[in-house]
């Protein structure tokens, strides 16, 4: 919806028309604000949404720090701040242009860096008058999304991957892979022409991260001892409080992720849409938690708090493809199905011996697919056939390219630490700084 909607919005504002007139809720014709006022509010939405999504990087860091063993916590923290920085630079180096410049219904944009508005000036439309929003605000808002995709990969591959190969993969993912697939929809590419719908990125952001994580998990292999002797041996995380804090931070950030994906706040209709999106986003997350809790109580006779946390995130991912159109009840239901998917899929991946430390594949890939499929339930512009084409296209490209990149990294520099280093913990072997030095033997069983 992103750029496509921006173009229509720019047209509406250029004519100084009443953008809310075609929205059912706008019964009284609201006076149109000046284009400059709209520019300010649109830009403000990008900036607020952007820093909320930026804080999701902290959410991912805390969630992952809590779900890995204490001997790998420093490494996980380092990976998260490093991947955020790699993504931030790569999306300027070539990512943004590949995704948004000169796609024109095709498969890829142009390869170049990106420039912002001159100091003291503002972005203009085709007619030279004030544009719709500042260029840098849009760049910043889109950049924090790609960082979220990279965070997803980090969680799945925790506790056994080497730092530098992971960051090289992150550079390719955030500078090339994500921008190419992102251009297909948000850059106005071929899937946008086909009518594929993904409002804030259940597929474009979350499934892409999930596919890249799945390819990595298959090529990297499971953690030592996880599936020894044909049995699943859980390796419980170091801190449930940190994982809970991380989940709450992600939940908060999601209001920026989904809400600001309305991409405009210059009219009463737009600001009402943003508000509805906030409400639906919250309802879906709550639905995901309750569903995951109920299901673990029924299956295991106890409520697994880590599943409740994953349930919140799965609910959020599920509603991300269409957070505006569903009514409240449908929003709860869409989120609840996400929660069910997590509880079913986590042990299923273990059966397949795919070791996903934080549950990122069920949360971001499976719930992302579900959310994308659920769009036609409330949005008449979407149809199941096109949604499936989109899901398959994103999956095929990302899984194949990610597998090739992981394989090349494995063959050249190696992606996995040695057995001894893995047993000692990555904090010691890769970082040299232990997260909890006062408890130096963290992670041993006695």
């Amino acid at each position: 919806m992103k750029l496509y909607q921006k173009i229509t919005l720019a047209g509406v504002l250029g004519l100084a028309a009443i953008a809310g007139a075609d929205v059912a809720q706008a019964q009284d014709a609201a006076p149109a604000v000046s284009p400059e006022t709209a520019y300010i509010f649109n830009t403000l939405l990008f900036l607020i949404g952007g820093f909320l999504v930026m804080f999701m990087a902290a959410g991912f860091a805390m969630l992952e720090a809590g779900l890995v063993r204490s001997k790998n916590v420093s490494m996980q923290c380092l990976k998260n701040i490093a991947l955020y920085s790699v993504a931030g630079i790569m999306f300027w180096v070539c990512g943004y242009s590949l995704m948004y410049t000169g796609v024109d219904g095709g498969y890829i944009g142009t390869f170049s860096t990106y420039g912002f508005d001159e100091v003291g000036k503002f972005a203009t439309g085709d007619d030279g008058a004030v544009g719709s929003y500042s260029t840098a605000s849009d760049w910043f808002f889109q950049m924090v999304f790609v960082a979220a995709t990279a965070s997803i990969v980090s969680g799945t591959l925790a506790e056994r991957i080497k730092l530098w190969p992971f960051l090289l993969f992150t550079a390719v993912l955030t500078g090339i892979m994500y921008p190419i697939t992102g251009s297909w929809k948000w850059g106005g590419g071929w899937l946008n022409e086909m009518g594929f719908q993904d409002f804030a990125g259940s597929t474009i952001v979350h499934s892409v991260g999930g596919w890249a994580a799945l390819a990595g998990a298959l090529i990297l292999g499971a953690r030592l001892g996880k599936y020894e002797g044909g049995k699943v041996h859980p390796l419980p995380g170091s801190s449930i409080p940190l994982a809970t804090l991380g989940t709450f931070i992600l939940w908060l950030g999601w209001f920026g992720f989904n809400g600001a994906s309305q991409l405009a706040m210059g009219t009463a209709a737009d600001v009402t849409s943003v508000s509805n999106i906030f409400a639906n986003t919250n309802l879906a997350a709550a639905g995901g938690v309750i569903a995951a809790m109920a299901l673990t109580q029924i299956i295991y006779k106890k409520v697994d708090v880590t599943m409740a946390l994953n349930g919140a995130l799965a609910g959020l991912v599920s509603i991300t493809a269409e957070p505006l159109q569903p009514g409240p009840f449908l929003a709860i239901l869409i989120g609840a199905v996400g929660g069910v998917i997590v509880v079913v899929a986590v042990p299923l991946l273990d059966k397949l011996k795919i070791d996903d430390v934080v549950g990122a594949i069920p949360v971001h890939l499976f719930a992302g697919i579900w959310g994308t499929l659920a769009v036609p339930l409330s949005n008449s512009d979407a149809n199941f056939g096109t949604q499936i084409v989109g899901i398959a296209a994103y999956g095929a490209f990302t899984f194949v390219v990610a597998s090739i990149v992981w394989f090349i990294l494995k063959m050249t520099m190696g992606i996995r630490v040695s057995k001894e280093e893995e047993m000692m913990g990555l904090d010691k072997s890769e970082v040299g700084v232990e997260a909890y030095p006062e408890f130096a033997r963290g992670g041993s069983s006695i």
Partner: protein
Amino acid sequence: MKYIISIIKPHRLEEVRTALSAIGVEGMTVSEVKGHGRQKGHTEIYRGAEYEVSYLPKIKVELALSSKLAAKAVEAIAEAGRTGQIGDGKIFVIDLENAVRIRTGESGEEAL
């Protein structure tokens, strides 16, 4: 003289200490330990998979007492440490050959 080693549930420590003080026990050594008995720990569930917790947290209380006080102390520990559930722990009593108070050099019962 007797040396008493008792393994108890962590949440009974305060009751045991109070009961020992009440009968005149003046000093004790306490450590946090892990172990298992006949039940071999227990199972927990993490993200859909069961796993065994082989070593449970326990408290080890060590006392050096005159033989007379030792008999009362064993009773006090058994009573205060008991919940009636599995895992209440055990008390071991061994003969103590000698004891020395390092500060003064006193030895035997004098040093207790």
